[in-house]
């Protein structure tokens, strides 16, 4: 389930990046590459596990769904930390000047 959710997040963030391109002030490109990296790695993991061990390709249950949500939250958190540190909007300066 987390593979499907991460792939969905990758597709959505890529679409958002493309709609705004070449402007990427809020670094959506970084978030998109994060999701694509994880999607590719999990895809390899799932395919190899399916070929060697068999069973179901996708694990669909509550635990797997919660993991998918947690993965998306972590990626968003890392992206927000990158945004807060790089501060492309200059928000820190404006807030601290008040």
């Amino acid at each position, binding site marked *: 389930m987390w593979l499907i959710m991460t792939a969905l997040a990758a597709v959505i963030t890529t679409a958002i990046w493309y709609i705004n391109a070449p402007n990427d002030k809020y670094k959506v490109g970084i978030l998109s590459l994060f999701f694509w990296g994880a999607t590719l790695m999990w895809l390899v993991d799932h395919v190899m*596990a399916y070929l060697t061990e068999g069973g179901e390709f996708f694990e669909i249950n509550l635990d797997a769904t919660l993991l998918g949500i947690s993965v998306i939250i972590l990626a968003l958190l890392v992206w927000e930390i990158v945004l807060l540190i790089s501060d492309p909007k200059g928000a820190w300066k404006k807030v601290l000047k008040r």
Partner: protein
Amino acid sequence: MACFLVPMAEAIVTTVVQKVVEKQEVKVGVGKKERTGLTWSRKLGWLNKLLWGGTILLALEHIWHGEVVPWPPFLTAMENPADVAPMLHEVATIGVAMAVVVTLVWGIIVLIAEQKAKGLPEVKTVSTEGAK
């Protein structure tokens, strides 16, 4: 068990390589000579983001499944000698395959970007940052 360690090792190496290449490009002003902003440091930046993103999110999955713990030896498979060999096998097969696939996809992205960049008018940028 610990398959994400291979992409993580690659990410560490490519991050160092990117920093070195970036410094050299700034030193010789490669960005100013390039037809586009498509410098090698920028291309390596895409690979770094793919690898680090995958590594961080896979690390969470391993913590979730109890395969990685915050105390030594960090990998639960290391606590039982019988689990060490399967773990190393997984690292050598799945871990390497993950790193190879991500690098291949990055190579395809770079090839497409270079094809698209051909024929573009000259620009005066020294842009070496991120996935713009």
